[in-house]
């Protein structure tokens, strides 16, 4: 399954009933050097659009939003000691959390790569 995107600059990789979520390369670039990431607690239920993680760069703190409704199944423990993974591998080792997918219909509202790219170009 291809990676999907939100207009809040999260990426979502769907594998079965589990979605892996992180922030996009565009987002990490805009934020600059990441110094701290707070991931959500496992078992926490989230609604689509709810703020559920925090990413702090040298200059500012930003919320990360749940791209879907569901339940958090895992947080990326590696980010606790190495938040800079978000800069070096935003769409790989720098993932934030995994969640179960509560409502598959919501997947339809996510952007594909081309649409997200176009959305970002509109922001510059």
């Amino acid at each position, binding site marked *: 399954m291809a990676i999907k995107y939100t207009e809040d600059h999260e990426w979502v990789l769907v594998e079965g009933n589990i979605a892996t979520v992180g922030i996009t390369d565009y987002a990490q670039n805009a934020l600059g050097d990441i*110094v*701290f990431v707070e991931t959500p607690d496992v078992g926490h239920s989230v609604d689509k659009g709810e703020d559920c993680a925090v990413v*702090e760069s*040298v*200059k500012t*703190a930003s919320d990360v939003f749940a791209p879907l409704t569901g339940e958090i199944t895992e947080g990326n423990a590696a980010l606790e000691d190495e938040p800079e993974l978000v800069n070096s591998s935003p769409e790989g080792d720098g993932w934030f959390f995994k969640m179960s997918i509560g409502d598959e219909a919501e997947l339809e509202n996510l952007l594909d790569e081309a649409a997200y790219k176009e959305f970002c170009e509109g922001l510059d």
Partner: protein
Amino acid sequence: MSDDLKTTPLHALHIELGGKMVPFAGYDMPVQYPLGVKKEHLHTREACGLFDVSHMGQALLKGDDVQDAIETLTPSDIKGLAQNGIRYSLLMNDEGGIRDDFMVTNRGDHLYLVVNAACKEADYAHIAANLPNHTLEILEDRALLALQGPKAAEVLNRFAPGVDQLIFMQMGEYDIAGIPCLVSRSGYTGEDGYEISVPNDKAEDLARKLLGEAEVEAIGLGARDSLRLEVGLCLYGSDLDTTTSPIEGSLNWAVGKRRRIDGGFPGHDVVMKHLAEGVSRKRVGIKPLGRAPARAHTEVADKDGNIIGEITSGGFGPSFEGPVAMGYVKTEFAKIGTEIDLIIRGKAVAAEIAKLPFVPQRYYKG
């Protein structure tokens, strides 16, 4: 860029260098360059950084007994300042609060002043109104560059032989690569370095020459802020304002010994009361014990959950390799090592009162 933002003589150069421009104190200024805030910060501590601080105000105060005159507005000992000596000083209000912090250089028959960008119009009006028998000459035709870091003296000496003879908080006139400049061995990063007042029409030329040296990188306001925070220096408007006294601000050293006795500055009674009786709140260093940075306006609580103060500057210290902050707490909690909590996103996060600076200051004192 918004139309009502002012620019410095280096504006085109900032754009050319890929500076990310943001509004700051009415100016369109580079917050960072492609290197990024963290690397810019570390480069300044390891080698040398060039900062455009032309948005700050430069002025000359002229007239008879000008040292006496400025002492009616500040608590510093300016009369005790040697020729070409520089002093960090405070413009005071009658309530003992701080209108601005600024640098005063004793140029013998006049004073050279550097004031904060956001306060400069108010400062000029205040000085002019209170010293009607003196002339305040605002140097609109001069830019200000800061060259900071352990390599600053070596680099600048290539262009201006002898400039390495200045010591911290001393000024001299030098031709730098043929450009007549006023050079101060001072800065606001905690490192050795210089502030260079240069004619506007030569500023870009000078900046390009300095940036042409292998040790020098252009550094933005983001790193300037983290550098000054790590070494415990106050940012006016965040850590100091019209409601804080120098004693609350832990700037007792900025109130001259002679001035404590003789007085003659606004708010002397409040400052003396604070010195004699102590203050109810004090500026302290605050070290968050986890990795989460605590930003300005974060509430500080005691271990029972009572709010005892607020962070006024906070962020991540790249050289300290962790979060750093300063702020005001009730004096009974100001002792170094006191355990406190910071309320970050609604949760109590452990922190402690820490000694300032977080990173040692490395000024050149001869």
